[in-house]
């Protein structure tokens, strides 16, 4: 392919070349009659410009993949575990997660109840007489402002 890059350049500016110049003679020796070649090239370009379209199923599959990709990204960023992903996890992980949540819930409730030390405060809190003023030792329940004093 020696000098073919130079022949390419010559072809691109063939309209500027003189008819009997060495450059023109070289081109003709490579491609034959240039007028005939140009007509051939025109047919080649026309044939190559033929366009094909893929079927709709290609786009449908890509749409599905796109949704899946960005649905996965959203749940990961938000810390949300999708039900499908959760169901796919191993039974041990499932059990460990459930157990952890149970323990946390239990401790939260337990701590909450333990804050009400003394049965009086506890009773006042759970009393049905929330609708009336109740005095428990030094504590007091007030209806209008709905808060509980205790000491």
């Amino acid at each position, binding site marked *: 392919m020696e000098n*073919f*890059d130079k022949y390419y350049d010559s072809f691109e500016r063939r309209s500027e070349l003189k008819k009997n110049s060495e450059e023109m003679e070289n081109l003709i020796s*490579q491609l034959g009659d240039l007028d005939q070649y140009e*007509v051939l090239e025109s047919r080649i370009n026309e044939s190559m410009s033929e366009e*094909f379209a893929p079927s709709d*199923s290609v786009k449908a599959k890509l749409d599905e993949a796109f949704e899946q*990709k960005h649905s996965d990204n959203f749940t990961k960023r938000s810390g949300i575990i999708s039900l499908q992903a959760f169901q796919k996890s191993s039974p041990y992980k499932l059990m460990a997660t459930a157990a952890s949540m149970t323990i946390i819930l239990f401790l939260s409730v337990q701590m909450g109840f333990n804050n009400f030390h003394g049965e009086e405060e506890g009773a006042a809190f759970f009393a049905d007489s929330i609708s009336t003023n109740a005095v428990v030792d030094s504590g007091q329940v007030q209806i209008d402002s709905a808060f509980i004093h205790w000491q």
Partner: protein
Amino acid sequence: MYRPMNTLTIMSDYKTETDENLMRQIGSGDRRAFDEIYARYNRPLFSFFMKMLAKDREKCEDFLQDLFMVLIEKPHYFDLSRKFKPWVYSIAHNMIKNEYKKMEVRKVLDKNADAGQVKVNGHNPETRTQEKIFSERLDLALAQLDVDKRTAFLMKYRDGFAIQEIAEIQETKEGTIKSRLFYVKKYLSEELAEFKLNA
């Protein structure tokens, strides 16, 4: 203005956005940006594959799908400072090169080729138009070329790439691309000489 890929921006008119901005949006999960990129490039890329893979529609659709999956799964592979079109065609080019290495396309074409009597998709040669015959002969002639010459020719004269862009896609010098293109011109001038006489 530089906008990082993970920033979703609301675009008012996707059709006037550059390919590069659309790719940035795709990385952020903008479905409409992906739809626009697909609308712009599905036919040219599919046609490129059809021309390179003996018009095997099923294979070409697989290739097209695989290519766009790269945009979905790995949008960060695209360097936002580059032009999108040469980049996406470089992916297509590499896919074709890998396929050609398997030599399957050449085997099919060699099996079907018969001097002047090409039967394609079950059509009887006698009923085909001159354009069809020319098109098939052109495809056969191009199929005999190595993948670099063939893709360079298609990218220049079908897809409108500049020499510099083709050199970037094929990772070679501009002089090499020019040599390849002229080689193909000379080769086709000889292979399709009968059509020159009829022109």
